[in-house]
């Protein structure tokens, strides 16, 4: 579904991603871990099409198409979803109104009829259950005054509504207490199928108890320096990142 080959990206001339290779197939869950500042969010942003990041080398193929050629909105319409580490606030725009605009643009791109208000609301009701989100929250301005947990829950709710093919969750666990973590993970797990795939970005192992990954990758200094199964996550939990850093840094000398 997704093939990343030798991806290099920089911001304002500083290289951040320095040769990422990754293959994600339908039905899989990949976890990307790594210390702070290693480039995890950068990778997520580059995949979603944030323009400040300049791709200097490499390619990304998503379902047979060159992802890097596409505008951010077209990537979304093709089925790439990014649950943001820091969701933005849009004053005066309700989540409901926002999502309806989004969903109908996605539908239009896919040649589907727009959903009328009734159908939209019933779809919303159904998906709301998935992440136990309150209708009241959705009639408020998008993310404005939301708690950290509410913002994250709202991200997963949007994911449920848009039914993406590839979901990238950037530190969705940060700022969540244990109950919220369980609810959010439940939601993600229920949305999983053999047709879609998930990339979970986190630097804690905790989340991976709930969303069990098929593969775990360690990102460090803009490269995937180690890949393994979920046991790798446990090992990292136990030993920290220092041994990996040492391995990489000594090899580089």
């Amino acid at each position, binding site marked *: 579904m997704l093939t990343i080959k030798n991806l290099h990206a920089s911001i304002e001339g500083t290289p951040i991603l320095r040769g990422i290779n990754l293959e994600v197939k339908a039905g899989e869950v990949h976890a990307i871990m790594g210390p702070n500042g290693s480039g995890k969010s950068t990778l997520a942003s580059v995949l979603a099409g944030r323009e400040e990041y300049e791709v200097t080398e490499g390619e990304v193929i998503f379902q047979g198409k060159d992802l890097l050629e596409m505008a951010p909105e077209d990537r979304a319409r093709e089925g790439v979803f990014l649950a943001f580490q820091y969701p933005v606030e849009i004053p005066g*725009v309700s989540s409901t109104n926002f999502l309806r605009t*989004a969903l109908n643009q996605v539908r239009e791109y896919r040649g589907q009829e727009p959903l009328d208000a009734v159908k939209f609301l019933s779809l919303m009701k159904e998906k709301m259950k998935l992440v136990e989100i309150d209708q009241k929250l959705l009639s408020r301005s998008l993310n404005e005054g939301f708690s950290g947990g509410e913002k994250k829950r709202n991200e997963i709710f949007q994911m449920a509504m848009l039914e993406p093919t590839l979901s990238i969750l950037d530190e969705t666990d940060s700022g969540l207490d244990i109950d919220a973590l369980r609810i959010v993970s439940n939601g993600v797990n229920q949305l999983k199928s053999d047709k879609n795939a998930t990339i979970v970005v986190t630097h804690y192992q905790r989340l991976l108890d709930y969303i069990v990954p098929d593969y775990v990758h360690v990102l460090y200094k803009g490269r995937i320096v180690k890949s393994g199964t979920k046991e790798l996550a446990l090992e990292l939990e136990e030993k920290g990142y220092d041994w990996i850093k040492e391995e990489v840094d000594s090899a580089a000398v």
Partner: protein
Amino acid sequence: MSKDNQILEEFTSKEYEHGWSVNYEADEAPVGLNEEIIRWISAKKEEPEWLLEWRLKAFRTWQTMEEPEWANIHYPKVDFQKLRYYSAPKQTKKPKSLDEVDPELLAIYERLGISLNEQKRLQGIAVDAVLDSVSVATTFKDTLAKLGIIFCSFSEAVKEHPELVKKYLGSVVPMTDNYYAALNSAVFSDGSFCYIPKGVRCPMELSTYFRINAANTGQFERTLIVAEDESYVSYLEGCTAPQRDENQLHAAVVEIYAAAHAEVKYSTVQNWFPGDKEGKGGIYNFVTKRGICAGDHSKISWTQVETGSAVTWKYPSCILKGDNSVGEFYSVAVTNNMQQADTGTKMIHIGKNTKSRIVSKGISAGKSQNSYRGQVQVMKRATNARNFSQCDSLLMGDRCGAHTFPYIDIQNPTAKVEHEATTSKIGEDQIFYCNQRGIDTEDAVALIVNGYAKEVLNQLPMEFAVEAQKLLALTLEGSVG
């Protein structure tokens, strides 16, 4: 180049949609301005002597006045001698009903999306359509007449209801109030008149639609709204003009009189031609709008969505004379490209327990300049006066300007005046967030801007709010790559 700047490089305002003009045979005054011209206009309109005298008095005062220069707007001086002060489509005789109106004129309005054909109108909005200098047609007159409501062109009111016109004309905006009001008083050609009798709630929106069609013609319309005790009316004003290389002058006067327990809502969606991207052409919009809450417990609300004009100079105001009266001002002013707007309000608290509320939302894009100028004045007598002002500015890019000039003058210690102001930039983050959900940039900007302006848009009557939303989106179309 940062994304913001790049976004702005791609900023190309959509061509002004109403920028066409129609050739029709016109009845025109000679170019220039002097007493003879004023007599010519007055005679053309078969006005009574007192009105001619009133005009001449205004003209003589105007000649002694200086064009105001305190506003934060810069434009080449208007040569008042090069303008034409009267232009009317030639109709062989005055139409008695819509059936008699020249179909070509009706077609002009059809093209603007305003059907004057009563049968076809579903929304139930009565329209007075003003083309250049004269009122072309007023719809739903009979329905309104049954309730005692008078809604007609100003010229007709002068003929049919001279006592009302004489009583209220210039009572809220004195003829010599300011430079443009004096000019308007001297040369005004037509406009709308509206009278709501005691205890009557006007059952439909009353609407005036202004269009400037002729070249080098100033449009000087006058609107007078009188709401008697316990009456209510909601009034809408819309406007367009063709696209021309030369600037056209528009200097209107609107007066509102609200008696005890009366409520008047006045909404404007202003879409005059703003000039092209280089700032060529466009309307100079110098307007004086003022309402007086003359009676106790009366209320006047101004709501404006200002998207057009090259230069805007406009401060709809409320004189809160009656005790417990309320004044409101809700404004969205968008400037793009080379547009300049200096707009705001004055709230003058005279009566006891008077309240005013100001919500101003400025949006600046391109190289435009957008100023809010507001005055809150609390007089000695105005015990327990309250004012709340919220002035927000939204900037798109870093080549535009937003300015806020609040003036507060309090002469009664019991007054409570609150002022809040914010300036924000439309965030790349917000746009990217929308993009990531499948919303293209154009729609993202529209969504964000409409969210920002929501409190004001909510004040507009339903159909108007939808129009205004589209207009905001259109004005900023292409603003962000």
